[in-house]
């Protein structure tokens, strides 16, 4: 009865609607309830990095009124400006230099004097960065996003105050607000980063000369990529890692050991299971005291430049979270629920500033999902299926669970491997180092993890990620035709080795 009565609600309400009044009149009456006369946005995004700009474009595509606040002056955040993109430029060009210098004669290419022009190398990097950041700015414009250059901080739950880069101040109000402020380099206690002799990843992509000796604190992905760049350009590089294996969290132990061996052969020295006790900067040299992580004899390492690459931490400084009572956890991450909502539901957070791996592609996925949650009420990110890539040579890539993860969780598994030394394309390229390793459930044959060391591993992992996302078995991959001769045949053969036997090994 009651529900029948309530169904008449629309009719009753329309009876109260003033006759002759248009929706436009009502809309202006409604807007009068806001404190400010400036147009309220559907979504205000603080941060124009990968998470922020992708969310802005997606929201623009979904028809939302969007503002994106960025203080750097260029879009793209750490990734485009001082992270993934410039480092890839240096990695690619330093690899070419190194290959021309050391790996061309036996291929039948004799070159004359090869000289490094570091200034030009950096210029090439800047050209790539500028092209991409400008491209993002164009995409924001194309999708109707208001791009505000300035520093945003919460004034209240719906208002963000922006100190404009060009001077002055403005406020922007939003029905929804997205925190996408990213992360910053974790400093090393006792060593002040000056970006000249003690550098972070930002300084490591902008050195003015090739240091004679480079000491890298931290053997994770960033540390090893930068170690590769400067080692190829002529530095004597030593990597100090606290843990017993390099590669950082998530890298399969067998893979970590394999790549360490390869990088050692390339001339990079490693000190694993070693703790940095203190550092002393005197003049043009830095002396770093190290000792075995489990305790032992101290040793002094000297270097012209020290790279601090011990990780990154969420960046929420100056955001005014305290003004709205938002909490962060003990590591400074903004606490969110499964729909990226903070405890104030219309304020959400994605990317490095919150939970999950600090990866640009993870931030992109979240950016799309969060806009879908706002607009449609549902979104999708599979945290068990986010690939990781280390762009050394050969590259290292993985997705899913590692062997040590499976062992720790008592999950049974079957392994199939295939070496690139048995792959025809790798052989013709004379790049045969590395292997593909596939882990699958012994009963169902469902893929559990894929780990690759090899040329173009970063591209090849996409096939593994897709298979894992679809819940494929190793037999599904093995029975999928792969073109010959390609490196991807090694992937197929590893899948064959997992459920049956490889043909060429």
């Amino acid at each position, binding site marked *: 009865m*009651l*529900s029948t*009565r*309530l*169904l008449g*609600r*629309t009719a*009753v*309400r*329309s009876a109260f*609607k003033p006759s002759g009044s248009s*929706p*436009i*009149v*009502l*809309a202006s*009456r*409604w*807007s009068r309830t806001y404190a400010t006369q400036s147009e*309220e946005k559907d979504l205000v995004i603080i941060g124009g990095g990968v998470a922020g700009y992708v969310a802005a474009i997606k929201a623009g595509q979904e028809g939302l009124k969007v503002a994106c606040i960025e203080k750097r002056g260029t879009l793209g955040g750490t990734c485009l400006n001082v992270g993934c993109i410039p480092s890839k430029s240096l990695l690619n060009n330093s690899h070419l230099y190194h290959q021309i210098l050391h790996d061309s004669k036996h291929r039948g290419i004799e070159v004359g004097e090869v000289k490094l022009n570091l200034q030009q190398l950096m210029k090439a990097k800047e050209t790539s960065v500028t092209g991409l950041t400008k491209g993002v700015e164009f995409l924001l414009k194309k999708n109707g996003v208001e791009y505000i250059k300035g520093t945003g901080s919460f004034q209240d*739950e*719906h208002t963000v105050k922006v100190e404009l880069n060009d001077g002055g101040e403005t406020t922007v109000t939003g*029905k929804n607000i997205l925190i996408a402020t990213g992360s910053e380099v974790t400093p090393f206690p006792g060593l002040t980063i000056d970006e000249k002799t003690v550098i972070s990843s930002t300084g490591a992509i902008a050195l003015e000369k090739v240091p004679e000796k480079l000491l890298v604190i931290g053997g994770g992905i960033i540390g090893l990529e930068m170690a590769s760049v400067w080692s190829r350009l002529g530095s004597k590089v030593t990597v100090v890692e606290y843990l017993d294996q390099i590669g950082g969290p998530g890298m399969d132990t067998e893979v970590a050991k394999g790549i360490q061996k390869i990088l050692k052969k390339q001339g990079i020295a490693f000190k694993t299971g070693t703790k940095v006790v203190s550092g002393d900067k005197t003049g043009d040299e830095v002396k770093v005291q190290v000792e075995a992580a489990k305790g032992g004899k101290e040793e002094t390492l000297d270097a012209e430049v020290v790279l601090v690459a011990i990780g990154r931490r969420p960046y929420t400084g100056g955001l005014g979270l305290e003004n*709205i*009572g938002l*909490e962060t*956890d003990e590591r400074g991450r903004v*606490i*969110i*629920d*499964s*729909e*990226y*909502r903070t*405890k*104030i*539901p*219309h304020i959400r957070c994605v990317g490095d500033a*919150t*939970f*999950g*791996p600090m990866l640009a592609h993870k931030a992109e996925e979240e950016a799309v999902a969060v806009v879908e949650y706002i607009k*449609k*009420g*549902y979104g999708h*990110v599979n*945290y068990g299926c986010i690939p990781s890539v280390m762009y050394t040579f050969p590259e290292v890539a993985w997705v899913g669970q590692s062997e040590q993860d499976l062992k720790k969780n008592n999950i049974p598994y079957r392994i199939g491997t295939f070496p690139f030394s048995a792959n025809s394309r790798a052989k013709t390229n004379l790049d045969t180092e590395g292997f593909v390793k596939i882990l699958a459930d012994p009963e169902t*044959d*469902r893929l559990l993890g894929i780990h690759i060391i090899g040329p173009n591993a970063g591209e090849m992992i996409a096939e593994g990620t897709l*298979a894992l996302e*679809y*819940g*494929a*078995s190793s*037999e*599904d991959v093995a*029975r999928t035709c792969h073109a010959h001769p390609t490196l991807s045949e090694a992937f197929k053969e590893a899948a064959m080795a997992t459920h049956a036997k490889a043909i060429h090994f």
Partner: protein
Amino acid sequence: MFATRVLRQAAQHAERTPSIKFLGKRTIPVSIDHTPRPHPASPTNSLPASFTNGSAHTSFSAYRDHAQQFGPLRKTIRADAGIGGNAGAALGSVAPPAGVYFDRNDLPARFHRVPLTADEIEAIETGGAAAWA
């Protein structure tokens, strides 16, 4: 031949079914439970109390998120459509959530039962005879 038929049938049964299957036309979920749940990548796999308990209503926005009045309050009134600019059906279900019931007396007076007059009571009690007396 019979043997061929048997072999063909056997071959059909032995045919491999890939794990990856096309699921058909995409469907959009009709009702989604938006109750806060821990983020899948959360290291503690839990949410602070401020996300879940009633004391979360420390702000007007938090209150609106949970408040009910003839259905959930958390409906955004589109500025371009204005109040009443959307069809009632577009505002979603007016049914209370499971375990919650609306009391007729909480509704505006126009929805209350019309009070019976003394004459009507008398008519009911006398089987209608009083109305003609």
